[in-house]
């Protein structure tokens, strides 16, 4: 009743919100169009391509693209190079994700307590994150080549053949590179999360006689769990996107395909060899696998909060 009276007595509050209702949509329209055109539509189109016989035709030519069911998926999954690339990205994630979570949480915790040089450390840690992969790849090639500084320091312990041309070491070296490069961003996420852990919890932990290590595991780790879930998700999705590093560090996934990633194979099959339908099928499989991993992580690390 009261709402009806206010609406009828004063014209403004009734008139204004409606005008602003249209304006809100109007203001957001460019962004919505962008999201639909660049994300939603291509996402659906990608799945459509994966189920059809799709090839690059001359512009303007009308060609038939028959539905072929699972043919593209069969072609993709019976290709040993594709299977190997999924194995490679599995190795990558097994090294990269745990290392990222542990190192970024430890460094963020240390950084959170320090007062002197705090800004210096913070900047030092995120400089690799903000720099182009293409630029830092140059240094890593210099550091990790056969006679590079790393092998000079290791002396007889250096692997032969050297890191990036060694079938066993190529993927772990790439995983190490990506971990190093991305760590600064995850440290920032953990630093934000650490501000949300109540100080009283640390105080009561220390009155209960818990040392620094003990309170790290009983207060910090559970306190930043939502951030850990986010770090797991983002690093897994980023890992699934791996392309630039194997393309440049190991000359396109060498040696012998030991460091080829699924996205690299998608590029080779889809754009170099003109089979976009097979490439789209690889993409669909890859995204499903990444989603499954993310859901499992959420299940086991997410808790019930």
């Amino acid at each position, binding site marked *: 009743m009261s709402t009806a009276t206010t609406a009828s007595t004063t014209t*403004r509050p009734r008139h*204004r*919100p409606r005008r*602003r209702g*249209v*304006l*809100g*949509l109007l*203001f*957001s329209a*460019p*962004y919505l169009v962008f*999201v639909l055109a*660049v994300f939603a539509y*291509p*996402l659906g*189109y990608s799945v459509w391509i994966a189920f059809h016989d799709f090839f690059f035709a001359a512009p303007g030519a009308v060609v038939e693209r028959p539905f072929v069911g699972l043919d593209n998926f069969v072609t993709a999954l019976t290709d040993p190079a594709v299977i190997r690339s999924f194995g490679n990205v599995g190795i990558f994630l097994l090294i990269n994700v745990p290392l990222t979570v542990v190192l970024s949480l430890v*460094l963020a915790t240390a950084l959170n307590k320090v007062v002197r040089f705090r800004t210096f*450390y*913070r900047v*030092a*840690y*995120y400089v*690799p994150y*903000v*720099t*182009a*992969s*293409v*630029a*830092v790849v*140059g*240094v*890593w090639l*210099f550091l990790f080549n056969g006679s*590079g*500084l790393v092998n*000079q320091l290791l002396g007889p312990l250096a692997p032969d053949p050297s890191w990036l041309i060694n079938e066993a070491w190529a993927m772990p070296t790439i995983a190490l590179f990506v971990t190093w490069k991305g*760590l600064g961003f995850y440290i*920032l*996420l953990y*630093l*934000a*999360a650490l*501000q949300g852990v109540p100080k009283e919890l640390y105080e009561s932990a220390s009155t209960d006689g818990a040392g*620094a290590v003990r309170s790290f595991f009983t207060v910090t780790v559970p306190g930043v769990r*939502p951030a850990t879930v986010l770090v797991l998700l*983002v690093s897994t999705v980023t890992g*699934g996107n791996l*392309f630039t590093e194997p*393309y440049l560090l190991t000359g*396109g996934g060498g040696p012998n395909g030991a460091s080829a990633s699924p*996205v690299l194979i*998608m590029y080779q099959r*889809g*754009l170099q060899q003109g089979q*976009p339908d097979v490439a*789209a099928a690889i*993409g669909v499989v890859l*995204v499903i696998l990444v989603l499954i991993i993310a859901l499992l992580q959420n299940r086991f690390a997410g808790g019930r909060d």
Partner: protein
Amino acid sequence: MSRFQTTLRSVVLALGALVFLFPFYYMVVGSLQTEPDPTVAGAFPNPGNLTGENYVQINERINLAQGLLNSGIFTGGVLLGTLVFGLLAGYALAQLQWRGRGVTFALALLVQVVPFQLLIIPLYVLIARDYGLADNFLGMILPFAINSTAVIIFRQYFLQLPRELFEAARIDGASELKLLWSIAIPLVRPAIITAVLLTFIGPWNEFLWPFLITKDASLQPLAVSLANYISNVAASASNPFGATLAGAVVLAAPVVVLFIVFQRYFISTNIGSGVKG
């Protein structure tokens, strides 16, 4: 906290800083060496082995100024799109009541976890083939045109502005565009700098998309032409490492300088809110 723990913490932090910074130092030193010196002594600048020749050499193979300009146009286009349309969307999400607001916000969050790998084939087909935007800045910019993280940061900051501020101006008859331009935007300047920094590194460092869509070397951003140099040409140069590292310094320097100068705008709380929503 014991003295031992404090020392341990300093050691961990200092070691971390060394591991993160050394490759950058080594990049600069290596880019100035006449002969690549991978020995331990080579990690220290040797006056007898210093030269600017590598910069000249890389500039002969890939036009550095052109590459920087192309990276600048690509990045500038993305920044323009993000600032104009991102601020509008962020304002609408925070200060206006309209149907579809919740869905739009959910989309902005969701977009950030959509894997780009699934999009490269359809985007390539659409943009390069159907729209004929290969070798074109528009085609390069399009998939990045509005940064969703920036939209969320804008919304977050606009939400913190008191509503009364706007109500008073509305009663005076100011239009929403005027409110946005003369009240809201000046109050969220720090958020805008944060969003610009965060948006900047996307296109400036992006390799895969411009690499797919540009075949014409005169249009390639520096990241793409340097990558092409690394994968194709480097083998034939007299000091491939020196030239590669010189190119790397040119590509990395603008971003590193930008982030050192504006470091106080790139702090955990801003970024955290942007990613978590």
